[in-house]
């Protein structure tokens, strides 16, 4: 009695007993996801506020430190991430058509690119640890000695690390959906909410990077 009963509807989607209809249930899931994305945006908004305040206080440090970042790696990462968003969107498209194998493939490609993003990010971080463009008191880079430069890297590491954490969460979610598409293959015209929500989350991860990239690399 305690667990909610479920009934199977055509197309494999489960209707939980407390919803009036499958449409309502889908609407609810989507609305919930949008709200969640709103909280994510506000989470980063706090960091953006820090960024704005300190950029206003230390314009020279911001310009100099930004130039010390590896623009090539940053650009490659941006392209990689945007492409991965495209494959995630394609997965939704195929899920609607019930082409489960393609859904799996698309998410596999997305995951591959996400992994590439993290690897590139790792090399960027490694370089920074090497030359000493590090946050706060760990800063030891001789190349830029303007007040505020360590602060730039505090903001840099805080925001990129938080973003990378989101990439990892997103990868986990997409991996789960991918396995489901390959193993169960039950996505179809009436049952693609999971794919849709997963890819919405991935778009958010992408979107945040699209803000971070110009803010950090193109000052």
């Amino acid at each position, binding site marked *: 009695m305690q667990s909610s009963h479920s009934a199977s509807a055509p197309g494999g989607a489960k209707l939980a007993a407390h919803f009036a209809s499958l449409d309502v249930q889908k609407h609810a899931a989507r*609305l919930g996801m949008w709200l969640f994305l709103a909280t994510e945006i506000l989470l980063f908004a706090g*960091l953006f506020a820090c960024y704005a305040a300190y950029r206003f206080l230390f314009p020279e440090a911001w310009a100099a430190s930004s130039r010390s970042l590896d623009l090539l790696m940053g650009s490659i990462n941006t392209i990689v991430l945007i492409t991965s968003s495209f494959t995630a969107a394609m997965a939704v498209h195929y899920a609607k058509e019930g082409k489960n194998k393609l859904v799996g493939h698309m998410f596999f490609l997305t995951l591959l690119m996400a992994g590439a993003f993290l690897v590139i990010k790792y090399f960027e971080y490694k370089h920074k640890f090497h030359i000493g463009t590090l946050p*706060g008191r760990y800063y030891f880079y001789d190349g830029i000695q303007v007040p505020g430069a360590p602060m730039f890297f505090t903001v840099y590491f805080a925001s990129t690390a938080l973003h990378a954490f989101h990439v990892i969460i997103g990868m986990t979610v997409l991996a789960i959906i991918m396995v489901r598409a390959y193993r169960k293959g039950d996505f179809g015209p009436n049952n693609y909410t999971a794919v849709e929500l997963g890819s919405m989350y991935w778009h958010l991860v992408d979107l945040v990077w699209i803000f971070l990239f110009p803010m950090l690399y193109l000052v």
Partner: protein
Amino acid sequence: MTPSSSIAAPGAAPGHEAHHDEHGDHPSYLVDGTTVKSWLLTVDHKRIGIMYMFWVLLFFLVGGIFALMIRLELLTPGPTIMDAMTYNRTFTLHGVVMIFLFMIPAIPAIFGNFMLPLMLGAKDVAFPRLNLLSLYVYLAGAGFALWGMLNGGLDTGWTFYTPYSAHTTTTVAPVLFGAFIIGFSSILTGMNFIVTAHTMRAPGITWFKMPLFVWALYATSCIQVLATPVIGLLLLLVSAENLFNLGMFDVARGGDPVLFQHLFWFYSHPAVYIMVLPAFGVMSEVVSTFSRKNIFGYRAVAYSSVGIAFVGFFAWGHHMFVSGQSTFDAGIFGALSMLVGVFTAIKVFNWVGTVYKGAVEFTTPFAYFCGFLFFTVFGGMTGIAVATVSLDVAWHDTYFVVAHFHFIMVGATIMAFLAALHYWFPKMFGKTYHEGWGLVSAALIILGFNATFIPQFLLGNAGMPRRYYEYPERFQALNVASTAGASLLAFGFVIIALYLTWALIYGKRVDNPWGSKGYEWLTASPPPTHNFVGPQPTYPEEPHFYVDPKKAEVSDAV
């Protein structure tokens, strides 16, 4: 599925008839599954509400014990029962426990969880499993915070101001991390409620037929969803600052502590409305029920909840009048803060308008309503006073501010919490308590409360700063009065705990003792597991649609 269910029939009278015999196979949620597992893994919003109640009340007790320790310490001008460091920890833990573990989840997570689906004619909230998850996330966060408290505690005050919080040797990080986790629980609950209000309304319940408690929860949830992430981020940054010295808010490294204050109050000012809006919602229900009248100015009350939620996002600067804000900003923030008072006043006038020419039944919840009205008006007026920049320069960080926010938070929110507890006690447990004891303890609490905090206004006005464990001789008389009041208050709570526990076991079996026509009363008390038997009911009329023959001549009685 029995379509003939009397509860589900449109416009049916509250189902207090013997439907238990009729639907013998639909036991109440309390007895449907009696194993420990059936409680711990339940997805029933009612059981989750009850479990929240257990924990939230426990933390209320913890916070209350800290409060009494503070008052005991302040009984004499010198050290009384503790040293300065212990005192700093005590008031910090009092604030953290009361705000993050008690006040924010109190009304939404207990009564919101329990009542929201009932009020919308839904079988559950939109995401039942997420709802259970929010409880465990809350407990995980509480666990972290408690662990930090037991292993050193922290002495920064509940506001965690940098740079001090980045440098103090007390255990800041676990408590902050705990608060961060609790934030997630709050976000989950908020999301769930918003989606529930959008998608789970029964046929016939349009937006403007939703009970006002639902409107209040909706506005609260919007704040929870939009403001909590910002403090979540901030708490992470300060923890990192404390552990690794990244320099984000460290002046020595070009950091700006005032930026911390901006981000902190961007959440924490709206958070005060997370605490008070549900209280307003409870009172809109209580005043209708016990005046036997639909609320006066329904739309005004509903919109003003949303208005408060909105304006509340643009008032945070009033906490920083003396933090180096420009005079211009201070003026703007002051004026915007006062707007909140306007919306609150709209509500107050409508509540009073509801009582006017109503058939008042002076029960315990109504007694709390009276206390609530007084404290909201008084506390709100002092809010306007402290939002006046020229005055607040003197009052800031004195006991005047402490009294202001306790009037609103304890005065308004605790009154509403107790009113809700008494009003919905029969709904939740199907039993009733002793009315006489209810009124006695309400009187004790309202009196004790005034005795505690009115002296604090005077102390603050005379210049006693907050957060010190010693004070000059001349402040002693008022401090003694305040401590005496706090004891009275505590005594009132003990009485409540006793008679409610007694009622839980031996209380008289009732269904709808108030004859309330709130939507949540249309089902049995306590409700069956899926809230009602049969298909989704339709609700053609408004909640609290009283057609009282005696009052038929009153034109606005309906």
